């Protein structure tokens, strides 16, 4: 992993919202380093600022302090169009009502490459089909998006991000609303995409046990500290017991998961 190329890095980053009466920070002194071919999970309790961090890393929200470098260049220096060719998103929450078919939805990922009428070239069709094959969603092409199950829709949204053909993919809680089978299936898909297609993938999740088993690295957000490392490294530093400030929830290193003391 040592020689893998750094795609996204952050140094001395402070995130939060700029209010009228000065800024209110959520987390400070964040240092991150995301490499090509690596699957990284972002974990932390509710309200700790995972979504804010993701929004800041995608350039949707300005950092309070510090820099975010994408391919060694400050992210705020990218034009929207150029940024869309480097970074793609998979978000939580439903889609607005429309008549979109699955093929059309995945093809929207080609927007940064199409002309002003959004016409698809043979190259675009090839990329769309490739993305659908990789995510095993080709058989859904003709369906409408509202006919799909949650698990299928999540895969289709990942296919859309793949069609965007970016080295970096960020996912906001992709495993929510899925059962264990589909959670594991989805994470295995992400793992495959990072290992085989060389994508740099960051996803936020509450499924810490699964994240420990299937991610190359984790970023643990706790109050006052943010740590990044491999699962073993973080376990050895007792990072997981900092997530929940509750004595009854204890991380059991031997099981790789949490136990609850009654």
């Amino acid at each position: 992993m040592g020689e893998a190329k750094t795609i996204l890095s952050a140094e001395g980053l402070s995130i939060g919202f700029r209010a009228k009466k000065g800024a209110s920070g959520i987390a400070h002194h964040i240092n991150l380093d995301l490499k090509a071919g690596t699957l990284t999970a972002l974990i932390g309790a509710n309200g700790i600022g995972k979504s804010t961090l993701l929004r800041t890393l995608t350039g949707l929200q300005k950092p309070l302090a510090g820099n975010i470098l994408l391919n060694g260049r400050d992210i705020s220096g990218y034009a929207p169009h150029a940024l869309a060719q480097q970074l793609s998103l998979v978000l939580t929450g439903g889609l607005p009502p429309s008549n979109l078919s699955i093929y059309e939805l995945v093809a929207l990922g080609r927007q940064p490459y199409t002309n002003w009428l959004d016409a698809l070239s043979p190259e675009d069709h090839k990329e769309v089909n490739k993305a659908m094959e990789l995510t095993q969603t080709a058989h859904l092409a003709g369906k409408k998006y509202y006919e799909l199950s949650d698990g299928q829709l999540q895969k289709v949204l990942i296919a859309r991000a793949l069609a965007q053909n970016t080295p970096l993919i960020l996912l906001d809680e992709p495993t929510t609303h899925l059962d264990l089978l589909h959670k594991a299936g989805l994470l295995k898909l992400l793992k495959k995409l990072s290992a085989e297609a060389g994508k740099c993938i960051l996803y936020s999740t509450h499924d810490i046990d699964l994240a420990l088993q299937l991610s190359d690295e984790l970023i643990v957000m706790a109050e006052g500290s943010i740590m990044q490392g491999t699962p073993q490294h973080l376990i050895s530093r007792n990072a997981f017991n900092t997530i929940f400030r509750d004595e009854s929830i204890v991380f059991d290193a031997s099981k790789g998961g949490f136990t609850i003391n009654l």
Partner: protein
Amino acid sequence: MQRSNKNSILFILLSLVLVSFFIMNISLGAVKIPLEDVVKSITGGTAAKETWQYIIINYRLPKAITAVVVGMGLSVSGLLMQTLFRNPLAGPYVLGLSSGASLGVAFVLLGAGMLPAALSIFFLSPYGIVLASTLGSLLVLLAVLLVARRLRDTMAILIVGLMFGSFTGAIVGILTFFSTAEQLQKFTFWSLGSLGNLPWGHVGIMATVCAAGLMLAACCIKPLNALLLGERYAISMGINFRRTRFIIIAATSLMAGGITAFAGPIAFVGLAVPHMAKLLFRTSSHFVLYRATLLIGGIIVLLCDTLTQLPGNNFILPVNAITSIIGAPVVVWLLLRRRKGIYS
């Protein structure tokens, strides 16, 4: 690929329907004119009787062109609103844009007397009315947009549109107290909605304003597709959201304002036509929907205008009555079809 063949056939069919409805609209009326003479007059030849030619060139042709422009402009405004607000029930009439335009026109027609003479002459000219009407619809659109940012609930946005309708009604009611019978009559006729009786000069201004709006809308085809996935996805796909929203608002205000200034508030066309296009073409691609909405919009308003002449030789129904008879059931039907929060 099969789909695009089918689309081409549909587009050719719709174009033929539009042309034949256009000719049918012109050939029907109180005075019976043979089809042959109608075609001759439109294409620049001479009809058998001079009066026929006069009727066609100065009365029926501007009315038919007005119908097509009104249909196209309002329908495309509806399509833009539905995608921008992520709301299948949005349209220039439902969101109160037409009410806003009415308010602008009411101020001009009923209140111009209170202004200094030079200003009142400008505002009573067709340009002044277009300006007031466009500003009125722009104002309402900005207000709706402000509410939409605070409330994510799509129904709330519609209720705001409804409130604007009542509000403008009330203001107009107050204005009527201070206006003369002549001004009042002028405004009442205007507010019933009418495609006819427009001189060529007015048709020209309306068509120019609408053409500008349609061109702006055409520039948004790609961002509109991206907006189908919501604002955040659109931005992540490289869309400049603020600029797109600005262009959509400008285009809609121009079209809804320009049309309402001359033809009066026309109900439901902007809401119903985009849904007809979506049902017929079964797609969300705005490149297809834009063209489909243009054609179907022209066809529907031509048809409605033709229907207003049905009762007999001496009666002409207000066009608003016909569009509402067709449009209101469409809205109810859309609400009933709602599944899992999804409309057609």
